[in-house]
């Protein structure tokens, strides 16, 4: 495992956008041990449940979010042989097509980075205190949690 120096935080909750390429470079910088990098990024889609989406508002619980995400990263590091991890999650008002979330994981062997990245996303979805409010043609609606997300997270303990 390749540790990051303290200047590079593993978790960033931010209103501003991020640069996917820059984040991958930071994950790879001075990290010649890990040959594999898997990234996930999620963006605001233009539709949900058949409704046209105009934008998204993201709220979170400061401090608790960071604590929860750090716990998820620690669990992933115990379960897989992974090197660096980066989680970025945006908050505030987002337009269609804007980036919402980024998860990057490096590892020596690809299956560790694939599994750890999906694990982090699955648990971020069901346990990190973020809430999405969608602006659609019918007005503003707080999104409901999906049963399928809960099932995905539970599947990891099988």
């Amino acid at each position, binding site marked *: 495992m390749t540790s990051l120096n303290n200047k590079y935080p593993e978790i960033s909750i931010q209103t501003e956008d991020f640069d996917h390429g820059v984040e991958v470079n930071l994950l790879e910088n001075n990290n010649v041990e890990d040959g594999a990098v898997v990234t996930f990024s*999620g963006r605001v889609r233009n539709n949900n449940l058949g409704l046209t989406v105009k934008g998204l508002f*993201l*709220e*979170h*619980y400061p*401090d*608790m979010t960071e*604590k929860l995400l750090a716990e998820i990263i620690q669990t992933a590091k115990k379960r897989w042989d992974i090197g660096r991890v980066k989680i970025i*999650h945006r908050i505030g008002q987002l337009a269609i097509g804007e980036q*919402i*979330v980024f998860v990057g994981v490096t590892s020596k062997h690809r299956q560790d980075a694939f599994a750890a990245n999906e694990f982090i*996303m699955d648990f*971020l*979805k*069901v*346990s*990190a*205190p*973020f*809430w*999405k*409010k969608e602006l659609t043609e019918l007005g503003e609606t*707080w*999104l*409901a*949690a999906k049963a399928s997300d809960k099932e995905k997270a539970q599947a990891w303990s099988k």
Partner: protein
Amino acid sequence: MIKVIFFAALREQLGSAGTEINADSATTVAEVKVALGEKNNNWQHYLTNNSLLCAVNHQMVNSDFSVKAGDEVAFFPPVTGG
């Protein structure tokens, strides 16, 4: 005092981001809910929603979890990030 905060849909339903209750009025999360309902009758309906989650000092807890003066008790709907 116990600090109580609300998020997302619940914050909008209650029309409040948070309040404080006297530490003597509640020893568990369930009692915090009751104290909040007594404080504001309009809140009772929303606070009895079974899907509501609770965190005490940033840790997810059940309704029988003990609370004490100085705690931060947060109520919120199921999370929808990512």
